[in-house]
């Protein structure tokens, strides 16, 4: 059996850190600036691609992902140049997936065909909500009608379209969300990312929450009800859950994200991007500078990485479990009792239907998924 990194594919993540505005819930590495010299950034991206090409020769690229920030603010020409540079370094798989995250404003939708011509074959549209009041509350710059026409256009332009929604929003009832999800599914997406709103420290929502000003958030019980309703409705519409927050028609799963969850190899290029690469049987984690100007400077003058470390076997195993158990398919574990996992806990959790261990495959069941963090803690810590 080959190692995970050989089976799970090889991906390239490109981070575009700029946004037109910062959303109050977002804790991603995103920055709002007046203007960006995209040619400098092109030089930097290309230099890093070349560097990794030399370090990891002979790989077959199964996926490229433009994430952010807002990568739909990139010029299509820049996206094209990056994809060209990638294909100059490595062989692209026949079915290579090239995804770009896009915001559904009319300006960005106007670039869709440019991205397609550059080589993008999948978009992930940040719709987030299907009513204008909530879109404003979430700090989004698009309207619901813009979102609907952007999705329509995307379906015409790209082979594959996914979009994101955020639920468990302020003052959102169970029936509000069921209704909204039905409307989303009526657009017949082949992939949906459905995220429960998470209040992160260091965001505008985080500050408001700390001061007690973020009202109407669901309690644990409503949060669980919303989660189960989401699973039920998506399953009924032929978009089963393949990961905690991701739903797809069979075969339409995000190949790129599966590389993360299946502990494949990927390189991360751009400010704040992380990578995992396997060199000489060692799994290496890479990090880059968070500040765009710092990363740009480092990539232009030498190496765009700020940190590189070899993971211990223990850490590799932990990541395999932490990431892999998010997937419905679960992870393979050794048939002989692996001392790194707590088998007593697994038996307990299995008895109450939250996990299953069959044919050397450990899975978290649909009932276990909403309490995944606790399951991970229980089975990865002793006693």
């Amino acid at each position, binding site marked *: 059996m080959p190692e995970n990194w050989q089976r799970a594919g090889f991906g390239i993540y490109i981070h575009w850190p700029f946004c037109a505005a910062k959303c109050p819930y977002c804790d991603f590495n995103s920055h709002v600036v007046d203007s960006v010299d995209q040619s400098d950034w092109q030089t930097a991206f290309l230099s890093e691609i070349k560097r990794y090409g030399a370090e990891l020769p002979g790989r077959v690229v199964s996926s490229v992902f433009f994430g952010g920030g807002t990568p739909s603010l990139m010029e299509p020409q820049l996206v094209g140049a990056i994809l060209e540079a990638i294909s100059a370094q490595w062989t692209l798989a026949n079915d290579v997936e090239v995804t770009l995250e896009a915001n559904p404003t009319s300006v960005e939708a106007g670039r869709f065909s440019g991205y397609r011509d550059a080589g993008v074959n999948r978009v992930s549209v940040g719709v987030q909500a299907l009513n204008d009041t909530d879109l404003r509350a979430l700090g989004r710059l698009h309207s619901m009608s813009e979102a609907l026409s952007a999705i329509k256009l995307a379906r015409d332009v790209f082979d594959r379209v996914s979009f994101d929604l955020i639920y468990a929003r302020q003052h959102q009832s169970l029936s509000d969300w069921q209704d909204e999800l039905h409307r989303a599914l009526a657009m017949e997406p082949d992939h949906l990312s459905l995220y429960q709103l998470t209040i992160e420290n260091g965001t505008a929502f985080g500050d408001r929450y700390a001061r007690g000003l973020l009202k109407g958030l669901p309690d644990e019980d409503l949060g669980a009800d919303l989660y189960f309703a989401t699973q039920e409705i998506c399953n009924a519409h032929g978009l089963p859950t393949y990961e*905690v927050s991701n739903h797809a028609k069979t075969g339409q799963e995000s190949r790129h994200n599966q590389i993360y969850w299946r502990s494949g190899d990927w390189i991360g290029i751009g400010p704040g991007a992380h990578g995992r690469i396997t060199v000489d049987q060692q799994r290496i984690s890479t990090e880059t500078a968070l500040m765009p100007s710092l990363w740009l400077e480092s990539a232009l003058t030498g190496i765009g990485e700020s940190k590189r470390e070899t993971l211990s076997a223990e850490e590799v195993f*932990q990541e395999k479990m932490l990431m892999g158990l998010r997937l419905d398919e679960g992870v393979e574990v050794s048939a002989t009792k692996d001392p790194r996992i707590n088998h007593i806990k697994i038996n307990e959790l299995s008895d109450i239907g939250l996990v299953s261990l069959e044919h050397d495959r450990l899975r978290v069941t649909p009932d276990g998924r909403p309490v995944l963090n606790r399951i991970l803690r*229980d089975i990865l810590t002793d006693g």
Partner: protein
Amino acid sequence: MTELSQIRNFSIVAHIDHGKSTLADRLIQSTGTVKDRDMQEQLLDSMDIERERGITIKANTVRIDYIANDGQAYVLNLIDTPGHVDFAYEVSRSMRAVEGSLLVVDATQGVEAQTLANVYQAIDADHEIVPVLNKIDLPAAEPERIAEQIEDVIGIDATDACLISAKTGIGIPDVLEAIVTRLPAPEGTRDAPLKAMLVDSWYDPYLGVVVMIRVMDGVIKKGDRIRMIATNAVYGIDKLAVLKPAMVDIAELGPGEIGVITASIKQVRDTKVGDTITHERKGTDDPLPGFAPSVPVVFCGLFPVDAADFEDLRTAIEKLSLNDASFSSEMETSAALGFGFRCGFLGLLHLEVIRDRLEREYDIELITTAPSVVYHIYMRDGTMTELHNPADMPDMTHVEHLEEPRIKATIMVPDEYLGDVLKLCQDRRGIQLDLTYAGSRAMAVYDLPLNEVVFDFYDRLKSVTKGYASFDYQMEGYRQDNLVKMSILVNDEPVDALSIMVHRDRAEQRGRAMCEKLKDLIPRHMFKIPIQAAIGGKVIARETLAALRKDVTAKCYGGDATRKRKLLDKQKAGKKKMRQFGKVEIPQSAFISALKMDS
């Protein structure tokens, strides 16, 4: 050797914060006993905890040389006694070692419950008492009113009270003169067989056990062979000294004198406060009255938070025992908390002091289980056993009846809080013995079960009276009552460390309160957890902790793997603060918090 007529032995009686230690400091300083440059606040309180809390735990003594207005040289021996009821026996022995007391009352506050308890000890010891009104420099001082209160409440003449400010030094010369002119000189016979009282003892890392004595009759010299009557142990005196307050060697001590001896005594445990010391040969056979070995009244379990600290805890407890004979310990195993010690204390303050010292001086993080008193269990076969730990309660079918210790509590409180105080006492099964007024302050005397007081009575009292109440108590012996052991079951398994003894009539209420508390203290698990209180096999209260329904990270992509791994490390650390009980994790804090009563 000083003539009896030139000796005055005294103690100072006061409530916490009324200025006892400051007055002692001034007396020492103004007589030149300690040079100004060596002076530090609360000179006699040598433990950090004593200085911090402003309380005296160990008795201390100082010998002051004083030239009085009559031109004669006097030796004044001050014994600074513990002011807390936990040490009531030690106080009573110190009181027997002196002939008079200064009664210090804060002129802005008036008489407090603790003042009363200690002043009664002084009266019991036939002391001459000189009232001293302190803090007269403060604008809020009302010396006339407080003097009247002393006469009303205590019944001693306060017309000639010394008016002082220990802080600024006002009135200190008057106090020194009053000691000489108003307190009696000691009595005793130089030619009689040696009879000295063991007043206190402590462990000194250089000298070994140091014993403080008061000579009643006879003369003691360095090199003498002495016998302690209660323990029947014989020692040779290595060192004879007086405390000024540093040790100064002296050739002999005669009747009326107070000093210290060392005699190659290994453990403080070998010395019993109140014992009589005499010569090995030609000694007296007539011990001093009133000797009683000290007995712990409050017990609790002390367990290391980190099981790896157990050996350190054992060592620390052994070291503390060297210096504190009244503190007892034996190893204990709890299913919930692992290995630890069941420790006995003279009272709650004593417990806190020992726990603080273990944590502070030995750097061991501790879990303290709920304090319990000692019950007397009368078995059907006619035997009686003492119960120190509710977990050890025998099967009720073998038990004839149970007795619990009762106390007589004296509470002084401003009028406006009296209602709350009476309700608190009633809630704790108190029986009112007396209720009187002195000005705008009420004095309530209650007969209370000690077990209702050991836990959070004092905290509740302070809280309902905004800190204005003062409280003191004395043991009143054992009495039968309808007592039962209440067990707590978490997920159907009994948690030994949460068992308590409780009065049958209060069991439902306590059980309900504990179950509700635990429901908040135990985090949600993957399954619902019944939390029950039971007496024998009968469940008397029940709560259900709902199962965890949602705890999942919504977004987790390539950049989150490292962060998730670090979170896992944090969770592992957090888990160490939990105790595994069956399938349930109970946070350490729950073991004490669950027993606190909010109303």
